[in-house]
């Protein structure tokens, strides 16, 4: 019925939500197929997920709900599956907010780069094309019924994350500082961000942790607080039609990305932001199973430290990883992109039900 408003609260009427999602899904598929990627659909219930700090899976019987289709798709790549994409339902416990939902749609794609090492630029270009296509398709589907829509990005800037962090914090950062070296900076950023330390948390950092685990914990917290209190306002100060790719992540925040071979302090990772909203995260994929296991173990170390239950090690994925071709992989939050293209500030304003 025209004009009907969905039970999910304010935001778009149900008919417009259906039109927007239909347009967005078709636009994403059109873009990625035209680029030669094949669509796959892997299991939602999985034996193991990638271990990442502060990404918590939901259980489903004996198994887990996928937090991302990354491991499954990489196994397909290892077996010669070639460039592919998926529009996956993914689940992350306790992520609830204007821009978060425990269940959301992730567009995940991998470009098999064979022997070429083009870096992460092709992934950024894919993001730009998908964003443009979804803005255009959703705009055409909704016409002028939704006013105050954000302009589609017309320009994209590449931003050096480490340099921007250093500049805004008034320090020099190389990307592999230890937890001890970061401690004074972290305390300063905590105070600026309204964080008050629990008893026993201050002083020498994360006592009793191995240096790699402590470093991961410290960098993750520093990056999070800096993002919320410095980077988000910085993004908000840009003209609305400027998209941003942030690159040169510190090595400790490499997650599943390769390190830059020239200096090993930063990772071949980027994040894409539109209208101040983080949309996508891309890597030149790490293919070294020993290094990948080490990083998963660091996350397991954090989990044990903060009292989270252990997660299964993704052994099946690690056993195959060595065969993976050089690839760039990207994950893009489709719900956020639809909300942006519809001019709606919250995910519940565009959710179908």
């Amino acid at each position, binding site marked *: 019925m025209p004009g009907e408003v969905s039970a999910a609260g304010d935001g778009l009427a149900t008919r417009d939500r259906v039109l927007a999602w239909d347009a967005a899904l078709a636009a994403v598929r059109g873009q990625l197929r035209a680029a030669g990627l094949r669509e796959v659909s892997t299991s939602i219930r999985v034996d193991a997920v990638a271990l*990442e*700090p*502060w*990404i918590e899976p939901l259980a489903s019987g004996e198994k887990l709900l996928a937090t991302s289709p990354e491991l499954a798709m990489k196994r397909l790549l290892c077996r010669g599956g070639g460039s592919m994409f998926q529009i996956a339902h993914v689940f992350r*416990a*306790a*992520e*609830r*907010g*204007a*821009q*978060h939902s425990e269940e959301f749609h992730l567009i995940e794609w991998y470009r098999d780069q064979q022997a070429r090492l083009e870096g992460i630029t092709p992934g950024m270009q894919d993001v730009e094309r998908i964003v443009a296509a979804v803005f255009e398709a959703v705009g055409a589907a909704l016409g002028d019924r939704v006013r105050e829509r954000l302009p589609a990005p017309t320009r994209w800037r590449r931003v050096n994350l480490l340099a921007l962090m250093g500049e805004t914090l008034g320090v020099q950062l190389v990307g592999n500082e230890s937890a001890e070296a970061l401690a004074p900076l972290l305390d300063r950023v905590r105070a600026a*961000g*309204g*964080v*008050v330390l*629990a008893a026993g948390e201050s002083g020498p950092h994360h006592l009793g942790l191995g240096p790699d685990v402590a470093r991961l914990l410290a960098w*993750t*917290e520093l*990056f*999070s*607080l800096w*993002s*919320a209190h410095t*980077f*988000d306002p910085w993004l908000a100060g840009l003209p609305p039609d400027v998209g941003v790719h942030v690159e040169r992540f510190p090595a400790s*925040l490499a*997650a599943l990305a390769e390190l830059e071979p020239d200096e090993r302090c930063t990772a071949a990772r980027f*994040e894409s932001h539109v209208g101040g909203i*983080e949309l996508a*995260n891309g890597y030149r994929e790490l293919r070294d199973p020993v290094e990948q296991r080490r990083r998963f173990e660091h996350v397991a170390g954090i989990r044990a430290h*903060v*009292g*989270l239950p252990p997660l299964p090690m993704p052994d099946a994925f690690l056993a195959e990883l060595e065969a993976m071709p050089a690839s760039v992989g990207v994950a893009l939050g489709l719900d956020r992109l639809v909300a942006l293209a519809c001019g709606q500030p919250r995910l519940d304003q565009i959710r179908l039900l």
Partner: protein
Amino acid sequence: MDVSDLKKNSKLEIDGQPWVVTDFQFVKPGKGQGLYKCKIKNMITGAVIDRTWRSGERLTDADVESRKFEFLFSTGDAYTFMDSATYEQVELQADLAGDEAKFLMDNLSVDILFYNGRPVGLTLPSHVTMEVAQCEPGVKGDTATGATKGATLQTGYEVQVPLFIKIGDKLKIDTRTGAYVERVND
């Protein structure tokens, strides 16, 4: 409780004081640590501060409850209230009652806040009706100019009122702003 259970109106104990979450925002940058950016209000002093918690932190629930009581009398340094159903009496120290005390009249129904079983504060109804004890003589007919004069109400509270108000009039007062709203006809 775990910080992920935080909601608007969650009541927390921090440094021995009860706080209520009045504003709440979850952000989680990149593959980062979730942050719960909150505004919290001290349930005793009313002070509002910003506070951010990080994923993985644990918080303490505040043991607070609110119950209806009627005002009985003041001893100067404390106010006594009674539960009209059980006749139970409680005493609230004057410094905890704060500015709200200027509206306390016989039998006024208020919410008394208990923290760990002790009365620590009171919440007034949003509006009360109070009698004018003292003011300049009323000026008839002058309702349009917006001019005001001072008036002292039955509890000693002083408020600006329109010129036509006279001694013995009953006035509706907004307790949140302290302002005169209208004259109430018996």
